[in-house]
């Protein structure tokens, strides 16, 4: 007992600790989230390894510079950690986890060989479908390496069916088309189907953004580092994204960075299946989608044609069926319209799925909790990073969310011109949702001087709008330096966002989100409660406080539904209904008689009847409105209404009459409802009145002839005895009432239906029960015999039923007062307090356990922390001075300039490229011939060869 007492005392403190505790993900969840893998991937095995890459394609011998450069790259070796999942082989380097990241789909592996190595005990040579080779050299004990290889071998066998679908999948890849056209020399190959931009032109001017030069750079990267399902991500990969992805490649890069490519490969045919299964169906989401189709990106010409509208309709409709918890939210149409310019329908669909699940969870939910939470986080960032501006915003009562809400919801598609919004999206898919915060902060910082002169929301909005409309203009038009004059406002925005605000990290955002999550959720729940209470049906017997209590109990009972997130079903099933009523209805509370199976069955039957009566839509579930309407009838103050309602519960066919079977069931229902008073757990008004009368009589008697002392002694004894006596009397009265009810039912039913004669085969069970009733009342045997006549069935209509109920004082009182008093809709607060205390205790226990687990995990991760110290030191300092900013701008300018000249040179030499291609083809043929004898020899010599061809 002392342990629980101390726990109870500590409950408030433990509750506070639970608030400050940050939630953690499991190792597999972190792994999936970081590399955007599908949900069914988990780490089967991981080990330390060194990895190097070799491409199958080499340049001609005529260019010694490139050969030397490539030779150096080929020899480069990365040291890090290798992970194996059911469908992927993932490698990341140990330095900063971003110098070399390989996410390899096992289906792309063509062959795995054990490779002889002098410096390592165990090494593998993996050959991909493209001909590239990955050399994996294991570090550590040989046993673990062998174990890893065994599991890899097993996975290779299991992925045979997937590998067969690889060629069809690769046909949708533009990078594959690019390689096939320029290296393999296939002239008859067709361009894979892509977004609407193929026909309606991509936004922006191709010459202005150096489309061809960028395409060449990406081509070189893919040739050296692999592509689509087998790409190696290096710092060069990220640099090319920052420079700008060419429009033709944009869809594939977005798909690759977001993990939608893995989802599409793992769920082939899912998109078409969803559309086919739900064709022709309607829902509220589809109605809303139809309203917004022509209002997505009206300035893009494709969305004024039926083709563009149909693609948009398909993707949004498919997603609303796949994720009914979200359905459709305005702003999704704008984002998907942006996707479809660069992506096919299926690509856009999976990209939208990963966007809603991974990048911006909760943004488009029914309550938009993710958006509200990120607005709050953004405001806290503004407060921390730009205190002067934040002070000004507070002083002038400007609503920051008026401006920033569209930025976050539509990912800048509605704010910026389209060609700049897609550049932001390139970096968004690479870095995650922190990109939104960084760009938003940069916009405010760049316009801070102008904003500090605005005095209301309208001026504030106008300043930001003007800035977005002039992004293409020079940021320093008056500068004497020509380089500064060439810098556009958009480039300045990118520099400010991703250099100055690079300190905004995913961990920082996660921490801030958790900090404000509770407040946001409470606001959402309060708003939802107020909204739903406003839309309640009219009630005559329930006050607003009662409605509030019912609302709280309703959603407490439904544990699967989360108000703040808007997920789960908001309807109540029958099992939950039983628990719900047992909280406040005396007749439905658990009691000792529940041990009796027969009684439990009767109870369930009655509650099922009540449940079906309240289910207005006949869907097997109750909505909040159904519950409120039903309770309103149950607690009516009108005696006749209560009797009518009880009658209608058993009049299932609605003809206004009850047959013999229904009368018997009704009698059982009455017995069930009056059980608490029969067993003596509660006392009704009649018993109370009788007790008072008896006490008064006793007092009179005693005062008649005894002294005061004797009176005091006698009274307690009398009360004690009378209590037991009165309970017995009450029980007898209710039993007698039930018996009289049956007797009167059949007595009065006879008079009504004398004219009707229907042949009826009487059941022996019914006859037996009726005979038992006769035995109890032998004096009435003659009348009862008349009721038992099988050739004359009896029915009871509503007036007769009402008369029978009113004839008995006990039942009249029950329907007029006792039943209504037994439904305690106004006592919820106490129950809630108890639950809250218990929840605090359990939360405290959980928090305690979590803290211990966190400490253990922290110690386990100490080894990893040492390796990350180097990366922490190499991170640029948060406080960047103005001089540093200038230097960074200058560096960025050099970055563009240095890229410009090689691009020009390459463009000038493009005509020579085809000749080089011919030479490469012949060289490759020679290589293939010389390669075969080596493989044959190695297969003969090595008995432990692991060879597996797709």
């Amino acid at each position, binding site marked *: 007992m002392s342990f629980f007492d101390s726990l109870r005392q500590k409950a408030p403190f433990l509750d506070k600790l639970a608030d400050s505790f940050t939630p953690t993900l499991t190792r597999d969840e972190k792994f999936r989230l970081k590399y955007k893998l599908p949900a069914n991937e988990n780490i089967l095995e991981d080990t330390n390894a060194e990895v190097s890459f070799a491409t199958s394609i080499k340049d001609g011998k005529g260019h010694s510079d490139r050969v030397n450069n490539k030779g150096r790259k080929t020899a480069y070796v990365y040291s890090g950690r290798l992970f194996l999942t059911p469908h992927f082989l993932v490698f990341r380097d140990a330095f900063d986890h971003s110098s070399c990241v390989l996410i390899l789909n096992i289906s792309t592996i063509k062959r795995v060989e054990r490779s002889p190595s002098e410096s390592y005990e165990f090494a593998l040579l993996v050959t991909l479908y493209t001909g590239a080779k990955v050399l994996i050299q294991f570090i550590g004990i040989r046993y673990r390496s062998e174990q890893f290889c065994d599991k890899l071998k097993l996975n290779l066998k299991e992925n045979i069916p997937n590998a067969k679908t690889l060629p069809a999948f690769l046909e949708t890849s533009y990078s594959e088309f690019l390689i096939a056209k320029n290296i393999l020399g296939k002239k008859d190959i067709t361009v894979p189907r892509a977004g609407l931009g193929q026909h*309606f*032109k991509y936004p922006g*001017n191709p010459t*202005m953004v150096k489309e061809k030069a960028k395409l060449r750079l990406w081509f070189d990267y893919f040739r050296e580092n692999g592509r689509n399902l087998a790409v190696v991500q290096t710092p060069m990969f990220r640099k090319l994204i920052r420079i700008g992805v060419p429009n033709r490649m944009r869809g594939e890069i977005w798909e690759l960075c977001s993990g939608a490519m893995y989802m599409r490969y793992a769920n082939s045919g899912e998109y078409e299946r969803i559309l086919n299964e739900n064709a022709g169906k309607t829902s509220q989401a589809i109605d*809303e989608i139809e*309203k*917004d189709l022509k*209002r*997505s*990106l*009206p*300035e*893009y*010409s494709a969305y*004024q044609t039926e083709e563009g509208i149909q693609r948009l309709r398909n993707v949004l409709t498919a997603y609303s069926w796949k994720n009914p918890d979200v359905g459709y*939210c*305005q702003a999704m*149409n*704008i984002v998907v319209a942006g996707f479809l310019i660069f992506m096919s329908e299926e690509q856009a669909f999976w990209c939208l799925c990963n966007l809603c699940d991974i990048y911006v969870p909760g943004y488009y939910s029914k*309550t*938009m909790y993710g*958006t*509200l939470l990120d607005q709050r986080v953004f405001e806290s960032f503004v407060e921390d990073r730009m205190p002067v501006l934040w002070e000004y915003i507070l002083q002038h*009562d400007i*609503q920051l*969310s*008026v401006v920033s*809400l*569209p930025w976050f*919801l*539509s990912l800048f598609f509605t704010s*910026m*011109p*389209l060609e700049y919004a897609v550049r932001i999206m390139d970096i968004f898919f690479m870095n995650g949702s922190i990109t939104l915060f960084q760009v938003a902060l940069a916009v405010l910082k760049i*316009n801070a001087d*102008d904003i500090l*002169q*605005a*005095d*209301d*929301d*309208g*001026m504030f*909005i*106008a*300043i930001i709008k*003007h800035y977005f*409309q*002039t*992004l*293409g*203009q*020079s940021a320093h038009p008056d500068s004497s330096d020509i380089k500064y004059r060439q810098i556009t406002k958009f480039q300045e925005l990118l520099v400010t966002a991703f250099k100055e605000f690079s300190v905004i990290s995913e961990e920082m955002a996660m921490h801030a989100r958790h900090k404000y999550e509770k407040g946001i959720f409470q*606001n*959402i729940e309060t*708003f*939802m409660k*107020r*909204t739903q209470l*406003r839309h309640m049906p009219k009630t005559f017997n329930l006050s607003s406080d009662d409605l509030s209590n019912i609302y709280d109990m309703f959603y407490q009972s439904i544990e699967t539904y989360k108000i703040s997130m808007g997920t789960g079903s908001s309807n109540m099933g029958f099992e939950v209904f039983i628990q719900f009523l047992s909280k406040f209805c005396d007749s439905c509370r658990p009691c000792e008689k529940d041990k009796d199976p027969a009684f439990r069955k009767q109870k369930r039957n009655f509650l099922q009847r009540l449940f079906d009566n309240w289910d207005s839509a006949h869907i097997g579930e109750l909505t909040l409105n159904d519950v409120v309407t039903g309770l309103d009838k149950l607690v009516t103050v009108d005696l006749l209404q209560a009797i009518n309602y009880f009658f209608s519960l058993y009049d299932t066919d609605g003809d206004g009459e009850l047959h013999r079977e229904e009368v018997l069931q009704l009698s059982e229902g009455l017995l069930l409802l009056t059980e608490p008073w029969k067993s003596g757990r509660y006392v009704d008004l009649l018993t109370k009145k009788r007790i008072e009368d008896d006490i008064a009589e006793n007092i009179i008697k005693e005062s008649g002839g005894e002294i005061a002392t004797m009176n005091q002694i006698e009274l307690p004894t009398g009360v004690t005895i009378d209590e037991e006596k009165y309970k017995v009397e009450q029980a007898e009265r209710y039993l007698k009432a039930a018996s009289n009810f049956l007797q009167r039912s059949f007595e009065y039913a006879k008079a009504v239906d004398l004219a009707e004669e229907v042949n009826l085969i009487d059941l022996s069970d019914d006859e037996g029960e009726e005979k038992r009733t006769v035995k109890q009342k032998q004096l009435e045997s003659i009348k009862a015999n008349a009721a038992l006549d099988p050739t004359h069935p009896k029915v009871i209509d509503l007036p007769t039923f009402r008369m029978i109920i009113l004839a008995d004082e006990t039942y009249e009182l029950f329907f007029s007062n006792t039943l209504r008093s037994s439904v305690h809709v106004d006592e919820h607060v106490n129950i809630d307090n108890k639950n809250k205390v218990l929840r605090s205790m359990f939360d405290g226990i959980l928090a305690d356990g979590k803290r211990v687990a966190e400490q253990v995990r922290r110690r386990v991760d100490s080894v990893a922390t040492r390796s990350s110290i180097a990366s922490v030191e190499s991170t640029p300092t948060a406080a960047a001075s103005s001089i540093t900013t200038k230097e960074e701008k200058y560096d960025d300018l050099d970055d563009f300039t240095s890229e410009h000249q090689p691009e020009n040179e390459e463009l000038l030499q493009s005509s020579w490229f085809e000749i080089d291609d011919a030479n490469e083809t012949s060289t490759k043929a020679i290589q293939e011939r010389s390669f075969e004898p080596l493989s044959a020899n190695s297969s003969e010599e090595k008995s432990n060869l692991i060879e597996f061809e797709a």
Partner: protein
Amino acid sequence: MSQRKRYSLNVVTSPSIPSPTPSAPIRTNESNWEAASPASAASSFLPNVHHGGTVLNPGLGIMRSPSLNKSGAFGRSGSSGSSTVIEPSNIKLLLIGDANVGKTAMILSYCRELLTRAEMSRSARLRHQQQQQHKDLGLKKTVVNHRLSMKEKRKRYSSNDFEKEFKDINHFADETSDFGNPNIGDDNNHEMADPNEIVIETRSTIGIDIKTNLVNIDNRFFNVILWDTAGQERYQNAIIPSLYKKTNAVILTYDITNAKSFQSCMERWIVQALENFSSQDLLKARFFLVGNKIDLYKERQVTHYDVVQMVQEMQLKHGIKISGNFEVSCKWVNVVERTMNMIILDLVENGCFENNDPCVSITTSDDVQGHEQEFHDTVEEPFNFTRQRQHQLEKNNTVDITKPNDDIANNQSICCV
């Protein structure tokens, strides 16, 4: 005598002008007046001379004519120099209603930022010509090409949607670049359609959007701040906290071809507004009911009887009096503008605006009194006309604008109520 054209006093709120002064609008109006065509300039100048010293337009109390404004300012400074307007007052109009009823289009129509098909086609053609010139000049020196690229770059990126002023032809040329090169077939298709038809191409409103317009009413300047809201239901929790603060008028918007949007005005939007108004703001707020899309009269689902019924029901249930109910169409020229002007005039007459002038500290009733005196001092007849019109407005409680009476009005369709 033809009716004088009125130009929108749409002052661009650029960062260089954080707070507009009384002199700045006058200068802007002069430039707008100069930008007008010579014919309209001559026609607008002649009646002024004809009327001699008459300052006010006998037709309407709201004037946005630069020349009249100039004369009015001069006359005002001559007659009474004691009360000089330093800052314009604020009028906040809040448009709420279901999604897709046309709230954004109404605001753009009021600010005259909706294009006709002919204007759009002309912009596309200009864009095509500029591209052709660019190709020809590409053969010249690199420096010249670079300069042209910069110039073209600046023009192209100045705007990317339809919220810019339509008078700036260069902006139109730039914003239609995404439409691609119009070929001969496209031109023919455009010519087949009605060139004067207004094209409504708005996008879904995400959250809240604010547009500001400066209006001159009898030599007083008012900042009309129009708040556009998202209509989808799940947005309400995201935008409500900032919505109803200091609101002077709530415009309940519905679509006459969608009875459901009309029903939700009473069942959802009015209830939500009453819940979120503070008791102090509610005293100064007025409610208006506006039905949109009367150009689709063949698909009408909301009748005048329904409107009258709802107005009475709102009075009974919520104690709210609808100050006016209108029906408009963004496809017809000037219809939305006239309706908005009536609403703004009603607000000004009832003192439902926020006075930003710190020097003049007067109560609402005093301001109305002064307003009345101004009317009396200048011209007696327009004041009587205004009073008579207000009386008529209260009597009918319905203003049906089924047929626009502008010179350029589209008379091809007749609406039967």
